[in-house]
């Protein structure tokens, strides 16, 4: 503790520190502006959005935009669907990734490196390319219009990223632990479930966030694979608020707020956890 304080004291050159603070705060404002913009946008009419009042506070606070987003736009249901699909996708992706990473990094076998590289191929694949082939397969299996229609492809597309992050965390866990477990009579499975998986908790929030980013706003698959509005997710629902030749942008803004604000709150909650887990990890490492 003592050392720690000395080290903070030593680095501080007040002038530079203040300057850095000012820059950090300005940058924070730049990054907060979109949220303000989105919020005011959601309360305006087309007239204000296009030309009259683009970034000011709304002259007329149109809360009715929210009513129409919720009622005619059905955002409540879509929000629920999105949460469900995203949560399950992330869960499956994390589970599959942890198991795969365990086999790739903590069991010694010849093709481990190659298999790992094979999984990393997934980072390079553009989503658009696989829509039609996947769709044809899903349709042959009569597997369209379910939640799982989206959950499975989403977890597949987030898998590579999850394995990558897991690998980073898993190689940091000392190998002595495996051995101790072995001596205690744990098999590979026992070691994985009892020792390794619990230690990967810090990785969960990181993977969670990055996987979330890929699932929550995904549009292409959701648009093509889901045809009944019961299972529709937010991005498709929001897009469906615009018409062929006429678009009322206010309710779209409201729908975007509905889609984004809860995630921002969850994120703020999660980001604390991430930092905590990092600090915890740093002490041990």
């Amino acid at each position, binding site marked *: 503790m003592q050392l720690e304080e000395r080290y903070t004291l030593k680095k501080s050159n007040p002038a530079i520190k203040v300057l850095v603070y000012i820059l950090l705060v300005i940058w924070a404002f730049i990054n907060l502006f979109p949220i303000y913009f989105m919020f005011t946008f959601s309360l305006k009419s087309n007239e204000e959005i296009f030309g009259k009042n*683009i970034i000011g506070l709304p002259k007329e606070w149109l809360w009715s935009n929210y009513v129409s987003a919720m009622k005619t736009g059905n955002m409540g249901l879509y929000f629920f669907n999105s949460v469900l699909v995203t949560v399950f996708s992330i869960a499956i992706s994390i589970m599959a990734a942890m198991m795969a990473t365990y086999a790739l990094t903590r069991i*010694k076998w010849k093709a481990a490196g190659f298999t790992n590289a094979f999984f990393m191929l997934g980072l390079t694949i553009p989503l658009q390319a696989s*829509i039609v082939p996947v769709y044809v397969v899903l349709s042959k299996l009569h597997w369209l219009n379910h939640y799982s229609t989206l959950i499975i492809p989403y977890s597949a597309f987030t898998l590579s990223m999850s394995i990558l992050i897991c690998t980073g965390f898993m190689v940091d866990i000392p190998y002595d632990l495996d051995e101790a477990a072995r001596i205690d009579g744990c098999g590979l499975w026992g070691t994985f479930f009892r020792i390794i998986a619990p230690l990967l908790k810090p990785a969960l929030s990181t993977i969670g966030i990055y996987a979330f980013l890929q699932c929550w*706003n995904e549009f292409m698959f959701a648009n093509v694979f889901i045809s009944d509005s019961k299972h529709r997710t937010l991005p498709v629902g929001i897009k469906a608020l615009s018409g062929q030749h006429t678009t009322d942008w206010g309710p779209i803004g409201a729908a975007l707020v509905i889609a984004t604000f809860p995630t921002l709150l969850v994120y703020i909650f999660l980001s604390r956890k991430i930092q905590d887990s990092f600090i915890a990890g740093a002490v041990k490492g």
Partner: protein
Amino acid sequence: MAENKTIQTKKSHKDFRKGLDIFLFLLPAILLFVGILIAPIIVSVYRSFQDWNGFSEGTFIGFENYKELFTNGSIKWMVALKNALILAFFSVFVQLPISLLLALLLGRKYKGERFFLSVYFMPVLISTVVIGQLWLKIYNPDYGLLNTALDALHLSDFKHVWVGEVETALGSVIVPTVWQYIGYHMLLMYAGVKGVSPDLREAAMIDGATNWQVDRYVVIPIIKPVIRTSVIFAVTGSLKTYDLVRILTEGGPFQTTEVPSTLLENMLFLRNRYGMGSTISVMLILLCFAFSLAISAAFKEKD
């Protein structure tokens, strides 16, 4: 090490047992991966040798699509590729340094570190639709913030139809794209920075190193694997960039801001040239993979 030896001396059925375990551990991932990602790519490779509109019978035409992609100027493949590479350049040499700087600063235990960290990541969480609309308001030629500001500063000569003119359109797409994902890389790097043991910092500080020196000679070398990952993400992400281009310029004016993904979508779903679309996606995958390998190799060489 010891584990290795013991396993080697065990009997063959133990080896089989281990193989089975490895297989079972990998099974869920392999099923997902091969079923959803690899199989469609194989289909794409097959289709890339065909002239196929997506619903009728396709005809096999060998490498004609690949040839046409590079020789037919009206497809704009070279333009798209060039744009993606320019974007990748800006990502690596503008976006990542800013991310790294922020990660290092925040790693120094500034007051409000958590607040800044959360705020800087927020643009990543916000839908691209919102980001796109916001930047359209900034770029709008009549009442946009940028032109209004230029007027106010008596710099009216510098006013442009930002997303509509050939000279400025690409830049207008690059700025928001680079900006939006600064937080994304910052979080990755911050994780690395925080992973550096405080003892190492201490030791360096006691030896009289300044903060910058510590960052340069202690922290950055340690988080190099994270930086490598970020570079790979930045480059492959740039090659696959799509959303903001669609919203801000639609690939225009005169298709000068097309990127591979917009071309891909045009071919698949607007022009009904599924074969050519598959060709583009195969090229895109190859490019991404080649760049990932090259970047990994470059980082290894430096070690």
